[in-house]
């Protein structure tokens, strides 16, 4: 046997690998050009000042209260929004998954439809609804429920309401996808074995829908962390989220280094959240592959 001869199956394998690489190349180059390179640039900027290396931008996290307040408020809003979308979205997804095909399509359409209008439009709509002389205050005072208009907007409350509205589809859709995959026979079996509807829900349906809950929570939480337009328009200057911290640093102070370091820390937070979630439930299940 000559040492130069190539095993035909080996040759075939390497040909296949080359082909795979060729097919991947366009997508890969887009990811590298638009994601990896800017990210490296971001890291580089965050440790530079006046042409030299510095950790000053990161040191500010330790003593600047504004940073702490912004991160605290951002995480608080993200927690509230996530909890609210679970509570609001679960029954909707449950109803859609348990309905006939037509009804479930209708329910999902109602959830997704607002999704196709601009975030800006929706934020202004909430402004109109919630402002001092808005529809909500008007209706409440007409009914005699309140004497003075409630402050519903230009604060954290308004931001939270609008964010919940915008992010609800991100909770409902993964929940629905997971619930729809739960075979109907399982709940039928639970009932036939003597489980009351509540018992079957708690012991069978709820545990099996948990991957969808985690997926929805991760999506909503992470998306809230980066929200910008909604708190800017509805926060009334009293809501100061991390994204706004980034934009102020650039717009007002032209501090690219500070802005970069904040972005990097936020990104690390997101990574940590994904890691935590994947400890609870395998990542591919969160993403709905299984």
């Amino acid at each position, binding site marked *: 046997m000559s040492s130069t001869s190539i095993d035909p199956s080996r040759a075939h394998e390497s040909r296949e690998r080359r082909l795979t690489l060729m097919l991947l190349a366009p997508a890969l180059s887009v990811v590298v050009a638009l994601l990896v390179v800017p990210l490296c640039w971001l890291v580089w900027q965050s440790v530079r000042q006046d042409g030299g290396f510095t950790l000053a931008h990161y040191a500010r996290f330790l003593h600047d209260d504004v940073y702490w307040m912004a991160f605290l408020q951002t995480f608080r809003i993200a927690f509230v929004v996530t909890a609210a979308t679970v509570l609001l979205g679960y029954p909707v997804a449950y109803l859609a998954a348990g309905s006939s095909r037509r009804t479930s399509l209708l329910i999902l359409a109602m959830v997704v439809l607002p999704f196709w209008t601009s975030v800006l439009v929706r934020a202004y709509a909430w402004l109109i609804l919630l402002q001092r002389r808005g529809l909500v205050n008007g209706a409440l005072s007409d009914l005699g429920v309140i004497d003075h208009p409630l402050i519903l907007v230009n604060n954290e409350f308004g931001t939270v309401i609008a964010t919940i509205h915008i992010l609800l589809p991100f909770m409902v859709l993964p929940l629905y996808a997971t619930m729809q995959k739960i075979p109907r026979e*399982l709940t*039928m*079996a639970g009932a*036939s*074995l003597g489980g009351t509807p509540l018992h079957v829900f708690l*012991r069978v349906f709820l545990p099996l829908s948990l991957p969808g809950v985690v997926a929805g929570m991760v999506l909503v939480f992470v998306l809230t962390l980066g929200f910008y337009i909604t708190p800017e328009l509805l926060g009334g200057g009293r809501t100061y989220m991390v994204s706004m911290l980034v934009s102020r640093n650039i717009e007002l102070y032209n501090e690219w280094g500070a802005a970069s370091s904040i972005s990097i820390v936020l990104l690390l937070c997101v990574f940590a959240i994904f890691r935590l979630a994947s400890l609870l439930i395998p990542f591919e299940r969160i993403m709905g592959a299984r």
Partner: protein
Amino acid sequence: MVKSTQQENFGVSIRSATKTYGDFRALDDVSLEVRPGEFVSILGPSGSGKTTFLGILGGFVQPSSGRILLGERDITFEPPHKRNIGIVFQNYALFPHMSVAENVVFPLRARRLPKSEWPAKLAAALDMVELGGYGARRIDELSGGQRQRVALARAMIFEPGLILMDEPLSALDKQLRETMQIELKHLHRKLAATIIYVTHDQREALTMSDRIAIMNKGRIVQIDTPERLHDNPADSFVAGFIGEATLLPVTRVDERTVMLGDRRLVSTRAVPHNLSLFLVVHSEKLTVEPDEGAEGANLLSGVVDEVLYQGESLRLFVTLSGGGRVSLRLPSNHHGRTLLKQPGERIVVRLHPDDTVVVPEAP
């Protein structure tokens, strides 16, 4: 309170159950009496109403009219969880997030039985299906046959008065299916449980059942023992559905005689009076006449047009001289081979008067 250790089995009485969806009658005036401890199969093609029937028994489908009694108890409007009926589903419906043991004790937990009573019952249920020691396994670690047994143990642990099975063996391969059929039959004998078994597999129904109810178009066409069903089908639908039969149109001559073309066939059974009659020719009932020139009653002649070797038997297709095509089987042994004809050769076959079955056309 003294509780009887003897499991109590109930008879089931379905009284003119009907289920309509708009104009469609999924179940059309179905009545069935099942005795305590009886094994009854519901056999029919898909779309015959088997699933609706099962749904009505399990409480998942509300009948449009009719009543269902379990023993003396009217359960027509009882929700599924109060019926005390064990159901084995087609795909087992095991809870994937629970271990074998957690699955099997689900009915005990749902019934708030004291936890101290669980271990003994669990061990007994797992032993019964020969899965002792498998309690800690995850469901996805089990083979199809093992899942089947877990589903069975789970459906029996709460000692239901009735067990329903919805094609429980259809997902298994042929060999395992046959083993499980025999095991189920033994289990039934041991427990003396009342079992209603839904299937579309006639051999399965014939092997296991005390009685079989044949369903077609939402109705029960015939209820009988396997043997009577096979040898005395009520009409052409049952005859065509059970066994390997060819139906040939015949005309009535008198109480015991019919004509198939110009051939006279004598039967030991009464020939019905209906206008449209069929002769039921089961392939195992035809015997080859060694004498090719034989003539007379109950003899059919024709030409062999195909021979299929099927392992344990040879299947011959014969085009009869008066028209029509029948099949017959010869055992693939020495004796069978001496009678074997090749394609193109003439053949004379005999249908014994005892095996000459004439049925009316199905409505």
